[in-house]
C-alpha cells in the first residue's frame, strides 16, 4: 500500500503496525454492519440491498484454512441474527448461522483446490453463488417451520426466488468494491499467501 511521505504519519503507522490488520478487519466488519439497513437509490432493487456481511465473509474465507473460515462463518451468522431477529421470536425462526458456516467452508475449499483464480470476475461469481446458497438455507429452514401452519410453503419459495436472485445479483456486483480494499489491507503476520 503506498503511504503518504510524511514522518508523523509513518511513525504513527509503525506504532500501530502490529494491530493495523486486526483493526482493519474489525472496522471493515463494522462498516458492513452499518451498511446493512441502508437502502440507497441505485444500491437497492425492490427493497433488497446487497448482503455486505456475506461479501465480507467470502472475502475473509478466500485463502484461509477451512476450520478458521467455518468458525468465522459461525461468528458472522450470529452477528447477522443479532441484526435481524426480534428477541421474542429467537427460538422459532431461522438462523443465519448454518448458511454462513456452509458458505465460508465452501469458499475456503474452493480456493484451496485452485478451481478459481482471484480476480474481479471470479470473486463476483463466488459471491453470487454463495448468496444463492445462503438464501436457500434460510428458505429451507422456513419450509421446516411451515409445517407448524403459521407460514405458507408456496409463498416461502416464491420469496426465495425473488430474494436469492436479486440479492445474489446485487451482492455479486458490489463484491469487488469491498473485496479489493480488504485484500490490500491484509494482516502481515496472518497472511500466508506467497
Amino acid at each position, binding site marked *: 500500500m503506498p503511504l503518504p511521505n510524511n514522518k508523523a504519519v509513518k511513525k504513527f503507522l509503525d506504532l500501530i503496525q502490529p494491530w493495523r490488520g*486486526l483493526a482493519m*478487519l474489525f472496522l471493515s466488519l*463494522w462498516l458492513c*454492519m*452499518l451498511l*446493512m*439497513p*441502508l*437502502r440507497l437509490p441505485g444500491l437497492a432493487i425492490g*427493497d*433488497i*440491498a446487497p*448482503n455486505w456481511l456475506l461479501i465480507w465473509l467470502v472475502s475473509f474465507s478466500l485463502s*484461509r*484454512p477451512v*476450520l*478458521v*473460515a467455518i*468458525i*468465522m462463518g*459461525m*461468528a*458472522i451468522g*450470529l*452477528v*447477522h*441474527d*443479532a*441484526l*435481524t*431477529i*426480534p*428477541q*421474542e*421470536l429467537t427460538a422459532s*425462526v*431461522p438462523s*443465519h448461522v448454518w448458511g454462513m458456516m456452509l458458505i465460508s467452508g465452501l469458499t475456503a475449499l474452493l480456493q484451496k483446490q485452485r478451481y478459481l483464480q482471484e480476480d474481479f470476475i471470479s470473486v463476483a461469481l463466488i459471491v453470487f453463488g454463495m448468496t444463492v446458497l445462503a*438464501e436457500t438455507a*434460510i428458505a429451507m429452514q*422456513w419450509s421446516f417451520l411451515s409445517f407448524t401452519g*403459521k*407460514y*405458507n410453503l408456496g*409463498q416461502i419459495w416464491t*420469496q426465495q426466488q425473488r*430474494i436469492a436472485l*436479486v*440479492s445474489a445479483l446485487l451482492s455479486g456486483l458490489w463484491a469487488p468494491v469491498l473485496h479489493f480494499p480488504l485484500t490490500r489491507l491484509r494482516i502481515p*503476520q*496472518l497472511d*500466508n499467501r506467497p
Partner: protein
Amino acid sequence: MYFWGIEVRLTVWREGVDVLEGVRRWWDRYAGQLLVALVALILAIAFRYANGVLWMELYQFVSRPWQSQYNPSLVVEEAKVRELRYRIQELEMQNNQLRQMLSLPSTLSTQATWAQIIGRSADAWWQQVIISKGSSHGITTGAIATGAGGLVGRITETSPHSSRVLLISDPSSSVGVVVSRSRALGILRGQSQGTGVLEFLDRDPDAKVGDIIATSSFSTLYPEGLPVGRIRSINLNHQPAPEALVDFSAPIPALEFVKVYAPPQ
C-alpha cells in the same frame, strides 16, 4: 504373522507421528488465524446475546446528519383533510367520554412520540425498520408504531437512542383484527409486500371487498380500533379457513415518520 504384527504396528506409529507432525505444522502456520476466528466467535456470541444494541446505537449516531425532526407543518394540509381530522377528533372525544361512562379502559394512550425511520431491515426475509428514538425517549418493547394511514408495527428491540419495529407486513407478525362493518374476527399476517392475508376465525364470515379492517378488542399485542387496511379480494373456499387479501392502509414502503404509542395494558 508376529512380524506382520510388529510391521503393522510400526506403520501405524509412524503414520501417527506424521499426523502429529502435520497438526503441528498446521498449528505453527495458522494458530494466529485460529485465535482471531475464535475471539471473533466469542465476540459474536456476546453481540448476539445483546441482540445488536451496540450496532443500532452506532447506526443511529452515524446517520444523525441525515436525520430530521418531525415537523407537523410540513404535512400537506388540505381543507378536506383538516375537516376530517376535526370530525375524527370530535368522535374520539365522544367515544372516550362514552367509554368513561361505561368505565371501559381507553384504547390508545394519549402520549406519543414521533420518530424518523432511519433504516430498513438488514435482511430481505424480514420486514423491519429502525427508528431514531429509543428507550431514553420512553419507548419500550411492545410499543405500537402507527403512521399516516394506520397501524405500522410494534417495537421489538430498543437501544438508548433507536428502536427496531417489526412491521405488520412481516410474515411472522400476526394481528388480531375485525371487519369494521360486520365485526367478523380474523388474524392478519404479512406477506413481505404491501398486502397481508386475513384468515377468518368464522367459517362463513360476513365480509365484502372494500370492507375496512381494524385491530380487534381480542388482540393482546395491539390496542383496539386502529385502522389496518381494506379488503382487496376474498376467497371463501380456502381451506382450512376462509381468507381475504388486505391492502394495508399505511403506505409502509414510503413512510418516513412513525408515531409511537405506549404498549397497551
